């Protein structure tokens, strides 16, 4: 919450200070507005997951004790789970459980869900971060070129590519990549993070196998991990690449139509210098877009991880879905929701802090 206060204090002058009101009061109002939004969003999120858990087709008691158990056992477990209490009380218990990190036991693994989630999340972060880096490296320059050479072959190419990336089913692309580059050409590793004989050969220091391998100076492992991560990362990146290049293009076009650009051109600045000036002004917008696209990557990771058997949260989620493991599924949904809300909040705060025009 301290973070929030700082952000909001910095951005407070944005709401025009009325005479007689100190900046502190305005900052307080801003903090209250943001916290109300966040708390409300979280509450609705929890309500949705709570009710999804209630209407699920499988009986949670039978799921625990099996079909053969007798009536009295059923009744005992029914009461132990608190299912005999009023809904509102159950909801209170649910919120208390979530707040203390108790998401229940995952049926598929037998572990507490929170333990499983700690185990799978690093793999997803590694994949999504690498994808984001690839998406930015390719997307930003493409967007700039498309904007600078508007209506050229470059521009049409980038726009068509972006449309194509938007229209392709990513999970199908993953399968095609496995067929072509793994089965036919043998260029990449198959499914998973590393080949089977490399599993657990390095101390998990950071959770990212790539970085762990570099720390341990295990170059064979690094090569193997790279061969495994490159395809899912590239395919996952294609979506954010399309998004980032499209946004970069429209941001740049907006800047390039401004009068200061005309002035700069008239003064005789080279094209590179002009582009440099325009780019400086879209940096903040671009940063918020990149942060937001990280959330989209988590969404895309669900299917990508499933096809590549990448042991991250997406695969955990789909495995839970197949096995009717509602505890695992709802925890994942909640996790994604919280990450999304945080990313939105972070992007918003960053925008207000870094862009002087919003003050």
């Amino acid at each position, binding site marked *: 919450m301290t973070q929030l206060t700082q952000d909001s204090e910095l951005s407070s002058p944005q709401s025009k200070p009325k005479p007689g009101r100190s900046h502190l009061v305005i900052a307080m109002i801003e903090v209250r507005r943001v916290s109300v*939004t966040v708390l*409300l*969003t979280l509450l*609705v*999120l929890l309500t*949705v*997951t709570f*009710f*999804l*858990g209630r*209407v*699920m*087709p499988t009986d949670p008691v039978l799921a625990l004790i099996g079909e053969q158990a007798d009536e009295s056992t059923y009744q005992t477990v029914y009461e132990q789970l608190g299912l005999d209490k009023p809904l509102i009380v159950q909801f209170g218990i649910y919120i208390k459980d979530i707040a203390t990190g108790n998401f229940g036991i995952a049926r598929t693994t037998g572990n507490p869900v929170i333990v499983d989630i700690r185990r799978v999340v690093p793999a997803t972060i590694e994949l999504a971060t690498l994808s984001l880096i690839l998406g930015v490296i390719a997307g930003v320059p493409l967007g700039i070129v498309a904007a600078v050479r508007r209506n050229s072959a470059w521009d049409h190419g980038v726009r068509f590519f972006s*449309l*194509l990336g*938007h*229209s*392709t*089913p990513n*999970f*199908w692309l993953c*399968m*095609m990549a*496995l*067929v072509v580059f*793994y*089965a*036919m050409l043998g260029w990449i590793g198959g499914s998973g993070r590393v080949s089977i004989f490399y599993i657990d050969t390095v101390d998990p220091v950071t959770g990212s196998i790539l970085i762990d391998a570099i720390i341990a100076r295990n170059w064979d492992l690094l090569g193997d991990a790279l061969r495994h991560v490159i395809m899912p990362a590239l395919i996952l990146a294609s979506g954010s690449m399309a998004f980032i290049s499209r946004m970069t293009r*429209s941001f740049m*076009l907006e800047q390039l139509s401004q009068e200061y650009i005309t002035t700069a051109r008239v003064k005789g600045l080279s094209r590179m210098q002009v582009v440099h000036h325009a780019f400086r002004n879209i940096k903040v917008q671009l940063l918020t877009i990149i942060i937001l696209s990280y*959330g*989209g990557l*988590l*969404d*895309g990771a*669900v*299917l990508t991880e*499933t*096809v590549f058997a990448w042991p991250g949260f997406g695969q955990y*989620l*789909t495995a839970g*879905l*197949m096995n*009717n493991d*509602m505890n695992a*599924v*709802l925890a*994942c*949904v909640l996790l*994604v*929701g919280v990450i*999304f*809300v945080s990313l*939105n909040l972070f992007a918003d705060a960053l925008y207000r802090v870094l862009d002087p025009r919003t003050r």
Partner: protein
Amino acid sequence: MENAKEKIGLEAWLTTHSVSSPIQAWSQRVYFGCKEFVRQPLAMFGFIVIALLLAVALAAPLLAPYDPLQQDLAIRLLPPDGEHLLGTDELGRDLLSRIIYGSRISLYIIMLVTIILAPLGLTIGVIAGYFGGKIDTFLMRITDVFLAFPGLVLALAFVAALGPSLDNAIIAIALTGWPGLARLARAETLVFRSHDYISVVRLQGGSHARVIFLNLMPLCLPSVIVRITLSMSSILLTAAGLGFLGLGAQPPIPEWGVMLSTGRRFMLDHWWLVTMPGCTILIVSLAFNLLGDGLRDILDPRSEQQ
């Protein structure tokens, strides 16, 4: 000769500047819209593909060379040849026939999702924009919560709770799709609501419901149609994704996503099993996007200025 004269007459009626009836004005808009549309090759490509898809779905029994559910283990996993143009799957079913019948499932999904999503998003958005104040805040808060969620994960959660089936997948996709539409409809309504003609309707004694349903909603329609056409491609992709995960249509329904999911087990040695349905999804989804882009250019005059 007479025919040619008539054409000139019709063209004159469609292009004259002195418009005499609402029908004529409307026809002129459609006429100029079509003229504009035909000039865009990519949008035309999209339109032709979607028209073909509709035709194929309607005439599926006539076009499909085999029964899409007919199994014959003697001819399983045959590569594409003259007999089976796209090959056969792991149960000896003709892939081309399954893809042809699959177009019916895909259109069924897209149509039902649109039927649920469009009125829902439109009503919520227009009501929020028209009344403003607390109602607006309340409705937009709910919308924001749904928007703050990745579409696929939310759809997965809904299907998991409702149980995997084609109809539940449709409900789930519709439930995750309306917030974007509501936002759009609200933004449009905010522009129109302060116009004089809305005040005139109110002063004449028109009820709120009349203004909302008869005046504001039709005004929002063009941009909503564009948005829905563009989102049809993501509806298609989400439905295929759900089918692929076994949460949408169930085998043996020849849904394209389901075909990808069953083909996945054999794909490393039999490439056509996943290539054919996947390419179909790609082409159709691309066509919806191109069609939507083309429609936006003619229906939404603001986008032209950009």
